[in-house]
């Protein structure tokens, strides 16, 4: 699993490539230490290259969301594969996260 960080206007976009599971979750947490530590306000996590996520991965994203919310930051998710999205629906995490079909949509209307 790899994560690349880039800027799109004033939004920080993270492109995740690979599974988000019990093995890679510590790396995901570590990658987000810096932006969350710096209280980055607008974050988009592009999951277009994530074909698998487990309960540890979901828990890791929830943890990031909680930490971002604690300082008023926002995390949006984009480009979820159908099976990955179905897990957000089953667990009702779709209500917790702002989920967009495309990165463009996720980035464009950030206030």
């Amino acid at each position: 699993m790899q994560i690349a960080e880039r800027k799109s206007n004033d939004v920080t976009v993270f492109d995740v490539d690979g599974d988000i599971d019990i093995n890679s979750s510590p790396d995901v947490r570590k990658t987000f230490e810096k932006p969350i530590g710096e209280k980055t306000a607008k974050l988009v996590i592009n999951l277009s290259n994530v074909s698998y996520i487990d309960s540890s991965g979901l828990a890791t994203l929830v943890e990031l969301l909680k930490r971002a919310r604690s300082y008023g930051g926002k995390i949006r998710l984009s480009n979820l594969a159908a099976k990955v999205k179905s897990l957000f629906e089953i667990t009702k995490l779709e209500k917790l996260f702002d989920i967009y079909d495309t990165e463009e949509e996720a980035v464009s209307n950030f206030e």
Partner: protein
Amino acid sequence: MHKNIVIESKLKNIKGVVSEIIGLLKTKKADESDIFDIRLSLEETLINAIKYGNKFDKSLPVSIDVSCEENLISITIEDKGEGFDYKGVPDPTEEENILRSRGRGVFLVKHIMDKVEYNKKGNRITMVKRLKTPK
């Protein structure tokens, strides 16, 4: 097809078990969506068996029993732990639990498999899934 695999309680052993079973499903040309569900169910239950059942005690085995007949796969995972209270797992979709870190694994397995049963002690889970007809 019937297969029994026994592993030591190490998380690194999960990958091999999952690869073996997924490999069998691929030879049967199983649907990718079914393969996803079975992989997730296997990994979640094996992690629970090693972590919460056998508490990472390498001397305690985890047994995996797989039967696959035509379009039905049945997987039984058994650890040597004291069992867990599967009826007492809080619903992770409830508002008071939605932000919790734990409790989604078992919940997901119950939703993506067709049938999930525990023995009375709570240290053996059997999961059944009806596979889609190969295209």
